[in-house]
């Protein structure tokens, strides 16, 4: 992983087609809200399927908490769209079949020479894409639990919402 991908630094403002094929920029997708971004191997990986089931469970809370999710893989848009629909995910999936950002981010999984996927990684971000926390998901237990994600999102929200303490 690129050594600059640490808390306090900015995640690259990637611009990629979404699951519908429309070009989207990460900073637009954050829309002023906290953001979870996960890079994943592909639809075929059982670890990803298990992790996405976790995120899908969390989206029912995130939908009322002014929070965004974005998922990125090398799968082309139509594959990402099918995977997303099967998961019942209601957030944006970005497609990088040309692997534009894999090398700059240092997220090429070198041990899989067949798929050459993104190495799994998850980030919790401030709205300006500043990194709050990084999770290396190469081994499944390196991935964040929903409790860890909730804690991160609480800390980010507390930092960015001036009315976190209820106005008098």
């Amino acid at each position, binding site marked *: 992983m690129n050594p600059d991908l640490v808390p306090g630094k900015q995640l690259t403002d990637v611009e990629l087609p*979404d*699951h*519908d094929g*429309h070009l*989207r920029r990460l900073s*637009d*997708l*954050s*829309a*002023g*809200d906290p953001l979870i971004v996960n890079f994943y191997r592909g639809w075929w990986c059982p670890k990803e399927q298990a992790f996405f089931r976790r995120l899908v469970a969390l*989206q*029912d809370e*995130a*939908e*009322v*908490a*002014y*929070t*965004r*999710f*974005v998922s990125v893989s090398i799968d082309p848009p139509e594959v990402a*769209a099918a995977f*997303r*629909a099967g998961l*019942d*995910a*209601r*957030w*944006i999936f970005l497609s990088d079949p040309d692997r534009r950002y894999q090398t700059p981010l240092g997220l090429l999984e070198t041990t899989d020479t067949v798929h050459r996927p993104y190495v799994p990684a998850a980030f919790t971000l401030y709205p300006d894409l500043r990194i709050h926390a990084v999770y290396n998901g190469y081994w499944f237990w390196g991935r964040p639990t929903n409790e860890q994600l909730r804690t991160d999102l609480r800390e980010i929200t507390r930092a960015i919402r001036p009315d976190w303490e209820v106005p008098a």
Partner: protein
Amino acid sequence: MTGWCWFALVEGAFDDRLASTAVASAPATGADDARVGTFAAWPAGRKPVESALRMDERLVDPDGRAAWVSLVVVPRRIAPLFDDVAVSQALRQVLRGGQRVAVSTLVRDATTFAGSVTVGHTDDPRWQCDDPFARLHPARILRAGPGMFAARPAPAGPAIQRYTGKPWPAAGFLP
């Protein structure tokens, strides 16, 4: 930038005052090509016509192509709360995806769901029949001439809450 604009289907005369203050307008016709009125949008500020409602300003494009539109306008006396689970379910259905190029809910006040505008992706009005908001109140399927509606990518989910009463999916708490 407020994130919203005034929007109306003006079914009476679209006079010079309305036309000169609009940021975009286009004729609205039914499936039988009969003229039913004028779609128009105005900047945030003074309400231009009694029937105007707030809409996500990103749906407006003076250079937009003609499009089929599913328009839901719920009368005030039967408007559900925006937080009604039926409204939430329609918003989730929009986020799941579908054959639409732009969506905005319509806002009349701080608490209720006033309706929606859903812009279709093809020249076939039958695609508009899958408008999730039409399950809340009957939709009118109308043809908008060019110069009114934008094509927008899907809203960024999973957020379905409004921001200080703005029409969904307009984001940001700043007024």
